[in-house]
């Protein structure tokens, strides 16, 4: 059982949970994820780690309430227990001195990106951050990134804050030397970003979030085509070279269970939001 020590709402439908998990906190690195299961009829959901505190022996998760399980997780309060939390899973992000690293985060994945960017900074890199959201109200971790980074840019889909879209990155890449790009965000954002960076020949690492069931190499639901080969998101990833990923296939596979997910959410809402 894993106790929730702290819960806060970062934006509408975006929550942060700090959870007591001593062993995981001791082993986990940026880029890795955990799998949660909330009750005996529950599903297993992967969430990328947004931080660890070795002293407090906690892990931090930031997630968006999009489906039934994440809604249920969002309804949990400080002192509640999460029955199942397995991890750390997946490979850690590659952290070393690259030089000048462009960190691009979108939506809720800005939080795990901050975990990675902090490690990159600590490894002696200059960190340039681009954080984006659908609109200005959904933007998280802005102040944290301001403190951490040498440069920060904000982008929104609707232009309500900062740049609209990611096109401005072309100018940025033309104007300054970037040694590496790392991205965590919606698949479509990482696809667009990879297309932007490709002509510049700058290595672009993307953190993929394919559908997973076990997250431990057993189901193969998370398979993605990278450079023509089939890889498992959980075992071989979750981070891959964005210039080699077949994003269209990934999006297609991510949509597989959308109708069922919508149905589960709808029924969850109708049952008053606490149905198990």
């Amino acid at each position, binding site marked *: 059982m894993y106790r929730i020590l702290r819960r806060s709402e970062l934006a509408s439908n975006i929550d942060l949970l700090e959870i007591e998990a001593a*062993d*995981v906190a001791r*082993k986990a690195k940026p880029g890795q994820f955990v799998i949660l*299961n909330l009750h005996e*009829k*529950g*599903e*297993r959901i992967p969430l990328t780690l947004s931080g660890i505190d070795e002293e407090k022996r906690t892990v931090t998760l930031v997630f968006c309430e999009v489906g*039934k*399980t994440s809604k249920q997780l969002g309804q949990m309060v400080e002192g509640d227990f999460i*029955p*199942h*939390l*397995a*991890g*750390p*899973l997946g490979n850690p992000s590659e952290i070393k001195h690259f030089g000048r690293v462009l960190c691009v985060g979108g939506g809720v994945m800005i939080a795990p990106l901050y975990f990675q960017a902090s490690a990159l900074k600590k490894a002696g890199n200059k960190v340039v951050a681009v954080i984006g959201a659908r609109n200005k109200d959904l933007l998280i971790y802005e102040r944290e990134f301001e403190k951490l980074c040498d440069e920060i840019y904000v982008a929104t889909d609707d232009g309500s804050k900062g740049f609209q879209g990611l096109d401005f990155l072309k100018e940025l890449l033309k104007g300054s030397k970037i040694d590496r790009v790392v991205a965590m965000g919606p698949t479509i954002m990482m696809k667009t970003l990879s297309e932007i960076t490709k002509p510049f020949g700058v290595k672009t690492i993307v953190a993929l979030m394919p559908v997973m*069931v*076990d997250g*431990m*190499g*057993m*189901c*193969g*639901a998370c*398979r*993605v*085509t990278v450079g023509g080969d*089939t890889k498992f998101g959980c*075992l071989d990833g979750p981070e891959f070279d964005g210039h080699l990923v077949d994003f*269209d*296939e990934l999006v*297609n*596979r991510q*949509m*597989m*269970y959308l109708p*069922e*997910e919508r*149905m*589960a959410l709808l*029924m969850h809402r109708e049952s008053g939001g606490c149905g198990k």
Partner: protein
Amino acid sequence: MKKLARTPMSKQDPKERIHNFSEVALGYDEKSAVIEAERCLGCPNPQCVKGCPVGVDIPAFIRYIKQRKFAEAIHTVKEKNSLPAICGRVCPQEVQCQEQCVLGRAKGDPTSIGGLERFVADWELRNGVGVPSKIASNGARVAVIGSGPSGLTVAADLAKLGYEIMIFEALHIPGGVLVYGIPEFRLPKKIVEAEVRYVEKLGATIKTDVMIGKLHTIEDLFNDGFDAVFIGTGAGLPQFMKIPGENLGGVYSANEFLIRVNLMAGYAFPSYDTPIRVGKKVAVIGGGNVAMDSARSALRLGAEEVAVIYRRSREEMPARREELENAEEEGIELELLTNPSRFIGDAHGCVGGIECIRMQLGEPDESGRRRPTPVKGSEFKMDMDTVIVAIGRYPNPLIQATTPQLKTTKWGTLIVDPATGRTSMDGAYAGGDIVTGEATVISAMGAGKIAARSIHDFLTRKTHIARQ
């Protein structure tokens, strides 16, 4: 004169059972069990025991059934086998104990040893499970990685000897392949749960959600004070065909399909949260028990047509005959001597069909089975909206990746001394599918028994040396 024909076991009607996930074979009642037990010749030099990987005293437990001493019967089985309700259901007895049965060799049906084992195990579950009185701890600690058949066997055997056992399970429910792989209609979850409880009652502790190789390495376990480690992590990594279109929507590995259905109870969606989608026309690729389990599950989830595509002929199918017959009874079609060459997508990126090629059998290959080769120009298409790839599983590579001391084969299986289960790392033992590649529940249990014995020898020696 002994009856030559076996006492039949009642089964759910195929027309009924394709609409539910309840158990197909219903087991013997007391009367039919005794009648079947009466058929046993009670050979003075029993051949059946030689066919049992864990060496159950088969004539002795059957003799007790004849005398209606069911408690003594199950006690006799459990001296050697801690998971009899599971084994009675899923062991391939027809190629083990029953194959050796003298009755069978005399042109009759062999005694239904599996059916009788299941009967006494179920009898005990109904009447309360006796647990041997608690044995005092001998102070030595053993870590068991994986709670499948080999791990549970090691845990039970060593717990009975007074070892402190900690079982680490990566998933959220213990049981390994018994809960994620084998479907409810062949092995109900409550049976596995009861057998797992028994191992816990013997004194073993189970920790779920712990992925060894990630959260702790084998080295960590020794550093944490475990005196020996048993690795029974099975073969959980699905193989794919590596043909075009395999990543289309609607193409599952058998593992994903069965994990969704079994472990996550996807058949009960939306009451349970994990969905499973099955179309109208389902193709299952492969000829083993996993292929049969997948095909029969698909049927129960509402598929209109289910075809099993296998590249060899019926004779070479590795599935148990009983399961193959059950599948055919239920209306599963077999597309034999056929191999898929590519999966064809529809407008939405989902699978819409399969292109196959007919095969013919040539000379025997290294497995002893005749090698299938494609028949030129025999390509044809089948409309299919769901595909389940059930062509085998490799060992999960996570432990090996973080434990360089462990020697592995080119297939990723661990290299052990078959007589002891000892790996190349001091104090680390292994058994089951992680060593043999995908095999049976009972062979994993047999390997578990061997490893338990060697761990006991190893630790007895070690403590003895320490005391000197």
